[in-house]
């Protein structure tokens, strides 16, 4: 019964619950226990930067990158990052790049509360073990900032790169 209820709830998400409700649920039904959702709430956006002037975005800033993780209450989640060292100008000839760096205070994680102030600061190059919130609010939030250093001779255009966050469930 429990498995059936879980499956029906899942099907209900797609708006097809009514179509399914009258039919029998196959014994082959996937047992859907609590899953894990990682959502990108906000990308890391430096906006317009000035040649020769390093620009730092703190993880507490409004334009820091942010993820929300939901899953099993109180679960430990290993957080690790794959970080770029160079950003590429997608509008210029190949080879036009800009350095980007991350420091020991460039990332924050926090249970339950969607506010980086008061969260646990960590070095994204090292990673951390975060924790989802208690049953009433089984979320965890992760923020990331960084520093870009555009050279005086940097070519105009849009510089982009990828930050990969890996979350490992026990």
């Amino acid at each position, binding site marked *: 019964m429990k498995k059936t209820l879980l499956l029906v709830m899942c099907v209900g998400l797609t708006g097809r619950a009514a179509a399914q409700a009258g039919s029998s649920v196959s014994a082959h039904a*996937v047992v859907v226990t609590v899953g894990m959702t990682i959502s990108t709430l906000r990308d890391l956006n430096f906006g317009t930067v000035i040649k020769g002037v390093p620009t730092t975005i703190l993880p507490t800033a409004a334009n820091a990158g942010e993820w929300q993780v*939901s899953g099993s209450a109180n679960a430990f989640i290993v957080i690790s990052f794959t970080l770029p060292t160079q950003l590429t100008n997608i509008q210029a000839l190949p080879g036009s790049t800009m350095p980007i760096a991350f420091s020991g205070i460039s990332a924050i994680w926090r249970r339950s509360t969607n506010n980086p102030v008061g969260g646990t600061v960590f070095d994204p190059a090292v990673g951390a073990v975060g924790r989802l919130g208690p049953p009433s609010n089984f979320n965890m939030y992760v923020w990331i900032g960084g520093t*870009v250093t555009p050279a005086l001779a940097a070519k105009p255009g849009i510089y982009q790169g990828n930050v990969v966050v890996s979350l490992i469930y026990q």
Partner: protein
Amino acid sequence: MMRALGLAGMLALASASLAAQGVMVAPHAVFIDHRLRSGSVLLYNPGTEPVEVSISTIFGYPTTDSAGRITLDTLLADSTVSALGWIQAFPRRLTVGPRERQTVRLLARPPAGLPDGEYWLRLVIAAQAGRVPITGVADTTAIQVGLTLEVRTIIGVNYRKGPVGTGVTLSQLSARIVGDSLITRSKLERRGNAAFIGMIRETLVDSTGAVRGQRVGDSLVTTFASPIGVYVAMQPRLASAIPHPGLPRGRYWLRYEVVAERDDLDPTVVLKAPAVRDSVQLVVP
């Protein structure tokens, strides 16, 4: 029922976050029986934009570093318990449309003569959200900088053949109060031929035998519980918060137990094993 409520709540939350881009992965642990040799993972996109997903597999399992932090060890010399070479995931690439769900199938082709036991790998689900929206591109002299964030969810896949059993031993238990936190450390070693999937429970009692509450988020709990997976051995460091204004002077006992129970997993996949218990005294000067 708790699992049902948890899933419903999580999905409701996901639906409410219209701006968010990501994918829900369920279940967060896959157990494959040798008689069936297949499994599946459901992906659901709660967002309003399509999400590109790629699937890969690695071998590794949780362990702890010297500070007791849990890490995923992927540089393992002993790969006799690896299922990496013979479990495959299909499809490897897919696009999950807005509010759509798709299934990733796991197909096992174990080698002939595979000994009874449990074999492991990790499934990596990488989801790529949209590109960074950068404005002001009409200004051809400006420099615009943005980074796209990609997420990877890494879940365990446990393949079981024949009789499997598990257990855990507990030793080197220690506890101390640091500031407003209760810090514990113990050594856990797996027994049997399968991973020990369970919970650590910690209860703090004073000299009268009364249970002292611990704080978890905004809640007060009498027992601090933490999910744990002991694949070989680990020495986890746990920290819970002591409610304000802290503990009065005196002697306390920490009761520590490791049980083969998990609320977040189907009970049929959690291998039964005897609970192990220990306790240690703390003195608040």
